[in-house]
């Protein structure tokens, strides 16, 4: 394929990934990498291009998220210590881990993402507030029907540990791992869901930036490939807006889950069959 035709295809695929990712609130980065490998791109180049697009969507959405007043800047910054250190470790590991191991891990993450897209969120159970949260000023308020509703945060150490894992996965695979960040904040630490998603959006960009330097040094970021991916994902996610998953997006979530499931199968097949290019 010529560079021009290839760039057009990659742009279209990336735009679709960004569009679905923002509509479902699950992010598009996790779809871009396996889609690129399907198109014949080597795994590390695909990861490099995807990582760059993750930063674009995170920073691009920051202004809109801030206006709504949900994000918790202090919590984000505190947890970024864990995610950035995890990302640096993960990015270094990509240099020594065999491609097949990365593919297997990626397949697992994709399966989990597909399940996440379909699963209904359970009710948060009340957890005892953590005194550490008070000391770190993690408790806050969020707007609801014109009032500020206060919330208290639980299980700070467990959440911090899981964030290290989220950063590690992000650095290992060149994805935002937003779903895992949201779970750490929402399910483990007891942040309100919207506070979790908006704060996680901030953290995704900073976490990805922590891997980006190392990815650049390893030569994973190819300008000619990153160009259509970054522009495509950005255009797609802007078009998709930042609507929270609602009843109208149920069919889209199903579509997204199906696409992710297929890509998971591809990744796992390559890992086992040694189809690594």
């Amino acid at each position, binding site marked *: 394929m010529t560079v021009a035709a290839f760039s057009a295809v990659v742009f279209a695929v990336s735009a679709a990934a960004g569009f679905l990712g923002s509509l479902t609130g699950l992010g598009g980065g996790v779809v871009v990498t396996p889609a690129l490998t399907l198109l014949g791109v080597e795994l590390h180049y695909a990861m490099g291009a995807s990582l760059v697009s993750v930063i674009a969507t995170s920073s691009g959405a920051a202004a809109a998220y801030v206006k709504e007043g949900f994000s918790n800047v202090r919590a984000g910054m505190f947890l970024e210590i864990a995610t950035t250190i995890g990302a640096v470790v993960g990015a270094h590991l990509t240099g020594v881990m065999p491609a097949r191991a990365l593919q297997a891990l990626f397949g697992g993450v994709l399966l989990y993402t597909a399940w996440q897209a379909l699963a209904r969120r359970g009710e948060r159970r009340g957890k005892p507030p953590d005194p550490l949260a008070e000391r770190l000023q993690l408790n806050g308020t969020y707007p609801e029907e014109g009032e500020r509703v206060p919330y208290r945060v639980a299980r700070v150490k467990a959440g911090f540990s899981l964030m290290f894992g989220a950063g590690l996965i992000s650095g290992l695979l060149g994805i935002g791992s937003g779903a895992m960040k949201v779970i750490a904040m929402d399910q483990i630490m007891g942040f309100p869901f919207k506070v979790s998603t908006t704060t996680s959006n901030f953290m995704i960009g*900073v976490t990805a930036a922590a891997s980006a330097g190392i990815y650049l040094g390893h030569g994973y970021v190819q300008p000619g490939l990153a160009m259509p991916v970054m522009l495509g994902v950005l255009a797609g996610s802007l078009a998709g807006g930042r609507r929270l998953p609602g009843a109208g997006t149920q069919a889209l979530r199903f579509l997204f889950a199906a696409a992710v499931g297929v890509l998971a199968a591809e990744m796992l097949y390559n890992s086992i069959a040694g189809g690594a290019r």
Partner: protein
Amino acid sequence: MTDTRLETIIGNLLRAGVMLAAALVFGGGVWYLAEHGGAEVSYGRFTDPGGLRALFQLSAPQVLILAGLLVLIATPVARVVFSLAAFALERDWQYVALTAIVLGVLVYSITAGI
């Protein structure tokens, strides 16, 4: 309230950074396709670039795209720097210290890469 206002300014700066990055990447991309659009793609095999030397093998349009990507990577780093300044203005030394750790990790990553 000043917290929210400062965050709004930071958010707008980030969006401006992304738009600048996108413009550079788009400009470089058009130029790149005009020069290399007819060539065959070759991302099928990973070749170790051997550190910074690879940058000197990039063509001019690729360098322009890379410049855009570097602006993009700088946007979250800038966000952390702004937050550090904001916490210092609030005299919240605990968060000045915590933010400095995050910034330290980011600086390490960039220097380790180069």
